[in-house]
């Protein structure tokens, strides 16, 4: 368990170091040695003002999404669950695009992050109040699907009425997902929400392990199911909302990261949380590095790469799951 986390943390560090060397002209270790030797003042600017915020943003978003995915999968006892399933991502994206559409984001730079967190917070509150009244997990998922569709419809409406092609491309860009040009200030505004969400999820570690034996048996062994349900929903809302605020919609990390690490921790859902966060962070750092290294005319978006890599794995899990007996 500790060994798994240590290995994943080492991988994360390695990926971050590689990403620090990665630029428009390939990998250049010289930049790091220049900065260490103090030979080139520009090296420090490139490293700390441009690449570090981007790497930290990718790591934070990846960790938040990986953790949320693992938490939701443990709660729903379904390996295909992800932050998107409860409609939190969609609502956060809607909140962000609303601030873009009404020009608030242009007038006040913090409007967009606050809009995304507001959207996620609203849906989270709705889900949490529903969670108090409904005991079954299927009901909660259906509510999430409904909210997700509603947010999607509102998004389509906004795109439909976008005032000009320029603002339309602005809106579309947001839905693609990226960590380019993020500042430490952007990170500072969103990181506390991610941290709060992560802490909430991690307090439910043991309860989520117990939930593997089903709701009724887990309750019989002393699980307060409603408390766990609410903590996971609120924690997911906070962390996902903040990550959408920072990077837009980045899908599938929440499904793939837990799936990759699960066999290493004996498939224990509680023990999957931390490794899934570490793996999610590493995956997004690597994906963002690819985005920067691949020679494309138009900037390739992180969300697109994540989806292209993640969606086939999602399908693979779904197909394999269809073959095994499941009740």
């Amino acid at each position, binding site marked *: 368990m500790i060994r798994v986390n240590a290995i994943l943390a080492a991988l994360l560090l390695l990926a971050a170091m590689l990403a620090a060397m990665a630029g428009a002209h390939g990998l250049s270790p010289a930049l790091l040695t220049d900065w260490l030797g103090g030979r080139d003042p520009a090296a420090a600017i490139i490293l700390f003002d441009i690449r570090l915020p981007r790497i930290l943003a990718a790591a934070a978003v990846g960790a938040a999404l990986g953790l949320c995915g693992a938490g939701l999968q443990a709660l729903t006892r379904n390996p295909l669950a992800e932050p998107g399933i409860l409609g939190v991502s969609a609502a956060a994206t809607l909140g962000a695009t609303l601030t873009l559409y009404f020009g608030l984001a242009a007038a006040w730079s913090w409007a967009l992050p606050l809009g995304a967190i507001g959207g996620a917070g609203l849906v989270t509150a709705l889900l949490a109040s529903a969670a108090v009244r409904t005991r079954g997990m299927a009901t909660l998922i259906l509510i999430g699907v409904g909210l997700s569709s509603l947010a999607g419809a509102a998004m389509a409406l906004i795109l439909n009425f976008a005032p000009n092609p320029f603002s339309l491309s602005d809106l579309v860009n947001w839905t693609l997902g990226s960590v380019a040009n993020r500042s430490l200030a952007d990170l500072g505004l969103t990181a506390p929400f991610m941290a709060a969400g992560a802490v909430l999820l991690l307090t439910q570690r043991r309860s989520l392990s117990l939930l593997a034996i*089903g709701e009724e*048996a887990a309750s019989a062994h*002393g699980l*307060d199911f409603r408390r766990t349900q609410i903590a996971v929903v609120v924690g997911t809302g906070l962390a996902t909302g903040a990550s959408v605020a920072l990077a837009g919609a980045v899908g599938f990390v929440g499904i793939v990261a837990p799936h990759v690490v699960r066999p290493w921790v004996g498939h224990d859902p509680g023990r999957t949380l931390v490794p899934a966060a570490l793996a999610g962070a590493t995956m997004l750092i690597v994906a963002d590095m690819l985005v920067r290294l691949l020679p494309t005319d138009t900037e390739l978006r992180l969300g697109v790469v994540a989806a292209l890599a993640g969606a086939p794995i999602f399908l693979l899990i779904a197909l394999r799951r269809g073959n*095994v007996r499941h009740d």
Partner: protein
Amino acid sequence: MTELAATGLTLAGRLADADFRLSPGELVVIVGPNGSGKSSLMRLLAGQGHPDSGSVRLDGNEIAGFDPRARARRIAYLPQRAEVAWPIAVADMVALGRFAFGGAEVTRGAGDAGQWLDEVGCAPLARRSTATLSGGELALVALARAFAAETPLLLLDEPTAALDPRRQIDVMTRLLARSRAGQGIAVILHDLNLAAQFADRILWMRDTRIVAESTSDAVAVAANAAAIFEVSVRIESGSDGRVQTLAVQQDRPSRSE
């Protein structure tokens, strides 16, 4: 001394006015036709869900007022259907039975799982993945998990339903030994043979009600079985009056109503 006592338990359409008491050291068997309210009764006794009326008291205190973990340290309840959502190791599943005692106990439980698995004859399965188990094996591992809680009281909903005849007898023998060691055990069974051979008391349920309570004395078992299941039973009893074998036959049409 942990004692469970219920009075006037009622749950619309499923359970009517049920009184129940379970004390340490006794093995109580609950029998009755499908849908007669056995599982509903046991669920309420375990503090799962709320009755429409009536109360369940654990050591004199209303069970609904207990912190879930405090309750789970006194009563272990095994639901009818064993399930596991992820292919976790058998030993890890058994260790989850220690949840109410804290995280360190769950970790230690994974190492000690062998003793509880041994009780259900499944020690060799400890390192297997739960995904590879048969239905009967999974039921036995779930029972080992309930044993792992080491609670004063144990409520088991049909723990023998998926088991072969030999395993059924082994499980009942273990339950009897545990009750003689001081645990209070209530168990739902469909096999009248097992009920008659192992029970200290038998509760007979029909149409959402507890209609009779008897000892496992041959005469009492024969009379109640005939009345409640509308079957006739042929019983061979030993010199002590306890049932040795019990055969169920279709009710004779000549029986007068």
